[in-house]
Structures are given as structure tokens and as C-alpha cells.
């Protein structure tokens, strides 16, 4: 009985819980930066740790020690709360994703819906954070973030529902289980996979959809007034969102982890970094789109394609 409790504690705090996830978030950021640097004919992080692998952690600590400014005109309560809420909302869904074996730490019927809800909440929080800063650039950034939500949210959720319909369950763990005993959803629903990848790029606000924080147009959009600890938390939250995006693709389309407990995390991580590679590759290959381009593209192409995918699943039964 006691040993079971210790086992649960280890799972929550060490592996695959907090410690592992923090490590994974920083490491993913480093991998992303390195890959993009290679594509752009640069070196990327180089000095802190071997090949610069500790650079994201160093950046995080540096930001924590910097001066933390709250603008006089800002709406103080939401402005100060927003980074904390953003980080906690970005970490929470990761506990629903199976990393060891096909069972996640927290697993219940309908956790996919909860993840969708939390992802929308993150976008709303971004809007609130930008709005509360009362800066002209951040106001425009937050309006753009809100508009972007209208563009990508529906195709993204439709693409995430596809695997759930195929597996007949709204629990991520069960979807993974279903794929282990059958085919990967990637081969059955390639259109859904493409739609989800593109909408997740928009959700993560990465090039070519970094419209709400377009550096060369509106400085850095909704982030512009955040500094010090708040900025550190926001950046960490963005790393977690990136981890969540890759983890979702792995769980819903690439079959998640399988095999005995000592081999499944390795398989999982291999798939995970393939997803990171795809997302980083896309980031290096495009120029930034304009907000009207994104909205038109999402409603003209992404949403119909996602609907077509669901139609195919229902009609053909695959």
C-alpha cells in the first residue's frame, strides 16, 4: 500500500511528471532552435553546456533575475495573473497524454474534450494578457490573436475529433490503445494529420502564423509589455505548448508509445522528435502570412478539408 503511494509520487513528480516535462520542454526548445539554425545556415545556441544544450535554461534563469515591470496604465490583476495561468494551463493537459505504456497519469472518458477546451482557454488568455497591457502594439497583437483563434480553432478541433470517431472513444489513452491494436491514424486519416499540423502551427503562433507577435510589424505584439519573471513564465509556457502540440500529434496520429515500460518512452520520444522536426522545418520554410490571408485560407481550405476527413471516416468506416 505504502509502496504504491511512493510509486504514484515518483510518477507525478519525477517521471513522467513535472521533472521530466520541464526537462523535455527546455530540451525541445533547444532542438527547435538548433534545427531552425541549421536550415538558416547558422549555428544556433553554442556556448552554455555541450553544444549549447543548457541555453534555454540559462535564458530562463536570466529572465527570472531581470527587473519585473508592471506598466502604470495596465490592468494590474489580469496582467499579473496571466503568465501564471498561462503556464499552469499549458502544463495541465500534458498529464492526459500517455508517455509510458498506453495509460496516461490522468485518464478519463472525455479528456480529449478537456484538452480542446484548455487550448481555447490559452488563446483567450493571450487575448486578455495583451488587452490588459494597454499598449497600442499589444492591443493590436491581442486583437490579432483573437481573430487567429476564429481561423484555426474549428479545423483543429475537427481534426482532433477524427481519431476519436475512428477509435470510438473520447479518451486519449483509449485512442492510443486502439492504434496499437490496429493501424496508425496517420495512414487512415492523412488529411486530418495535415490539417492538425497546420492549425497547431497557428495555435503555437509560429512562423508563418506568428501574426499576433509579428516582430517586424508590431514589435512583439501581445508580449511587448511583459518583462522579467512574467516573460520567463510566458516563454516557458510557450515551450510547454510546443511540447503539447507535438505530444498530441504523436498520441492521436502516430500511435503513441507501445511495448514494455522500459522501451515505450524511447519509442515515444523518437516519434515526438519527428514531430518537433516537422514543426521546426515548417517554421524555417515560409514568410509570415497576413491575418486576412490566414482567415481566408482557414475557412476556404482547412475547415472543408477537416469536414471531408470526418465524412470519409463516417461513410467509408475507416
Amino acid at each position, binding site marked *: 500500500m505504502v509502496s504504491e503511494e511512493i510509486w504514484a509520487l515518483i510518477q507525478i513528480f519525477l517521471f513522467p511528471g513535472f521533472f521530466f516535462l520541464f526537462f523535455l520542454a527546455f530540451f525541445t526548445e533547444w532542438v527547435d532552435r538548433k534545427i531552425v539554425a541549421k*536550415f*538558416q*545556415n*547558422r549555428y544556433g545556441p553554442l556556448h552554455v553546456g555541450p553544444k549549447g544544450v543548457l541555453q534555454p535554461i540559462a535564458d530562463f534563469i536570466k529572465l527570472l533575475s531581470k527587473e519585473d515591470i508592471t506598466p502604470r496604465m495596465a490592468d494590474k490583476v489580469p496582467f499579473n495573473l496571466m503568465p501564471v495561468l498561462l503556464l499552469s494551463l499549458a502544463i495541465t493537459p500534458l498529464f492526459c497524454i500517455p508517455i509510458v505504456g498506453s495509460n496516461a497519469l490522468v485518464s478519463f472518458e472525455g479528456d480529449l474534450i478537456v484538452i480542446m477546451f484548455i487550448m481555447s482557454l490559452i488563446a483567450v488568455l493571450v487575448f486578455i494578457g495583451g488587452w490588459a497591457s494597454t499598449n*497600442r*502594439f499589444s492591443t*493590436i497583437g491581442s486583437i490579432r490573436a483573437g481573430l487567429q483563434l476564429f481561423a484555426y480553432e474549428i479545423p483543429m478541433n475537427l481534426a482532433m475529433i477524427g481519431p476519436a470517431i475512428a477509435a470510438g472513444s473520447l479518451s486519449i489513452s483509449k485512442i492510443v490503445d486502439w492504434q496499437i491494436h490496429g493501424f496508425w491514424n496517420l495512414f487512415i486519416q492523412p488529411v486530418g494529420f495535415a490539417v492538425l499540423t497546420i492549425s497547431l502551427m497557428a495555435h503555437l503562433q509560429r*512562423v*508563418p502564423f*506568428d*501574426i499576433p507577435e*509579428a*516582430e*517586424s*510589424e*508590431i*514589435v512583439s505584439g501581445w508580449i511587448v509589455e511583459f518583462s522579467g519573471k512574467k516573460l520567463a513564465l510566458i516563454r516557458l509556457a510557450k515551450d510547454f505548448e510546443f511540447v503539447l502540440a507535438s505530444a498530441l500529434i504523436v498520441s492521436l496520429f502516430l500511435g503513441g508509445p507501445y511495448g514494455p515500460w522500459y522501451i515505450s518512452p524511447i519509442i515515444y520520444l523518437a516519434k515526438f522528435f519527428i514531430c518537433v522536426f516537422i514543426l521546426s522545418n515548417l517554421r*524555417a*520554410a*515560409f*514568410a*509570415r*502570412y*497576413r*491575418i*486576412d*490571408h490566414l482567415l481566408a485560407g482557414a475557412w476556404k481550405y482547412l475547415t472543408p478539408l477537416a469536414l471531408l476527413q470526418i465524412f470519409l471516416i463516417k461513410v467509408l468506416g475507416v
Partner: protein
Amino acid sequence: MTFEIPFGPQHPALEEPINFMFEIEEERVVNVKPRLGYVHRGIEKIAENRNYQQLVYLSERICGICSFAHALCYSQVVEELLDLKIPERAKFIRTIVAEMERIQNHYLWLGLTAKEMGFETLFMYAWRDRETIIEMLDMISGKRVNYGMSTIGGVRRDIPEPMIKRMEESLNHLEARAEYYTKVCTKDPSILKRTVGIGILRPREARALCAVGPTARASGIPRDVRADEPYAAYGEIPFKVVTYRGCDVASRMYVRIDEIKESIKIIRYALKNMPEGPIRVKAPMRVPEGEAISRVEAPRGENLHFLKSNGTDKPERWKIRAPTLANLLSLCRMLMGVNLADIPVVIAGIDPCIACAERIALIDAKTKKLKVWEGKDLWRYANEWYRKRYGL
């Protein structure tokens, strides 16, 4: 709801210290007010206290990127006053360096515009290739910027045979890269989406607002000092004036990429047909009384230098008109009705260099009389203005 958004003088998207006040209505620009004056350096006033030889080096510091164009323009205007015939070989070397500077500037522009579009990868690639041409300039002149090549009566350094061989290799590389960028910029959908039909300047407007350089040529106006009024060795070298009829940022991009290719051809021809002989003649210190004007096609457009001498070794008046100032009116026209997201791309489209453009002349509107102000007067005026405005 209209609200005002300031751009600059310190803005990460705008490397140049200029202020634009945009009136925005639903992310669309309805009015724009440019404001200059943040980097006025008083170069024209300094010039009145230096002799002609020193001014060659001052003229190079007008602009960091098209430094040779200004030095060349200044040298030409002094040579005209002195009635000096410069050696043929010097003319060819001047042409070569001017064209190398154009290639360097256009690669820099391509990278910056890509960055404004949010296309970081293209930015990194273009600047990596720019390194090749800068190393060539370093090899010839010993410096990466402000080459110090031009002087009154010719050039200061020769281009010997071994250097020509190495230059040929670099030129082949650069030509291949220019072909690659043509392919990228005409095919990549995300670049096309951000540039085609953005920042329109119709030919009639371009003519009326006196646009110069690639900005005018992208509106279909074949305006190029190199062809219209050949200086240095341009009269002896065949080349074509690149024009496009798109009138948008995409055309400005294609004009510049094609000009890179054209410049490479000019350099090749000049290196092959370079005559032997001396590279400079001695110029006297004193310049006879008179006035002269010289025009040079800088990478950004037409440079104009006016010089008035009074028979001493120092000029009485030296007036510089850099291309950015000529293009500023066209820029304001282009910006009207543009989406907020496109502002940086459109501004980058004219390749602005504000520090070159900053000159001051006060003209009394009623009597049309030119007043010359000294530092004392400016100081008094500034104090009065602030006192009046803030009621101190």
C-alpha cells in the same frame, strides 16, 4: 475607430531613425505623416571648414552602404570645376567598384525585406551571400565599408591581374545565387502573397512625385543616370536598364535581383576591357571659382551633389541630395490604404537611408529668401519653441 500608431524613430522594424505617424482604421492606413530630423549631422556645414581633399573622406561617411556613390559623385563635381581629365583605367575601376557596391546593397536590401516579411531563412541566406561581395571589396580596397577608393583625379588603388582571377570565381558564385533568388522570389507562395499588389505606385504618380532609382524603374519608368547621362566608363559598356511594370513591392524586388545580374555582367565586361595606364592624375589644392553639379546612380537612386567654390581650398557651399529624400513623397503615396501588416514591407521597398537624407535649409515662405542659421540661432529658436509650447 481611427487610432494613431507611431512608427519610429526607434522601432525594431525600422532600422532608420525616422518617425511616421500612421492613422489606422481597422488595420488600414488612412493617413501618414513622416517626420525627419533625428539624425541631422550638419555635414554640409562641416564641409565649409575643410579642404577639398579632406572632403573626399567626409563624403564617404554620408552613407554607410552607398559610400562609394557619394565619394564618386563628390570627386566628379570637383573634377568638373578643376576641368580635370582622369585616366581611362581609373574610370573603369570606378565603374567596377560602383557596381560591386550596387550588388552589395541589393543583397542587403533583399535580406532586410525578407526579414520585414517574417521570412528569416531568406534573410540569413541573402546576408551570407553578401559576405562574398564584401570580401571582394575588402580584397580590392582593404576595407569592408567606406572603401576609400575614389579620390579627386582618379582612384587610390589599382586592381592587379591575380585579383581579377579571384573576382571571376566570386562573380560566378554570385550569379548562381542571383538565379536562385529569382526562382525563390517568383515561385514561393508566401513571398508572393506579401509582395504582389502591395504598395502600388502608378507610373504617372512616380513621374509626378519624382521617384528615382529602383523605385521608379519598378513603376516602368526607365530612369537611370548611368544610361541617361553616362559618367565614369558607363558610356563604353553595354548594359540594359531593368524595368518592371508591376508598380508593387514584388516588382521592386525583381528589379533589384535583375540589377544584380546586370551589374555582374558590367563588372565582367569592365574587367576584360580595362585599359592599361595610370590610375590617377595629380589635382591642385585650390579650386577656381565656379559652380558645378554631378549626378551618380547610387544603388538606391540618383545622387545629386552641387558645389560652389570661391577660389580658395575650401568650398563655399556643398549641397547633397540623397535618393531617399527624393523617394519620401512616393513612399507616403504608397503607404496610403496599405494594411498595417504591410507597412514595414512597403517602407523597406524604397530602401530608405534616412541619415543620407537629413539636410536642413530654411526658406522664408513670404519673401522666398534663404536664411542661413548658425548654431546660436537654432538654439534660441528651440528654446523659444519649447517655452511657447509648454508655457515654461
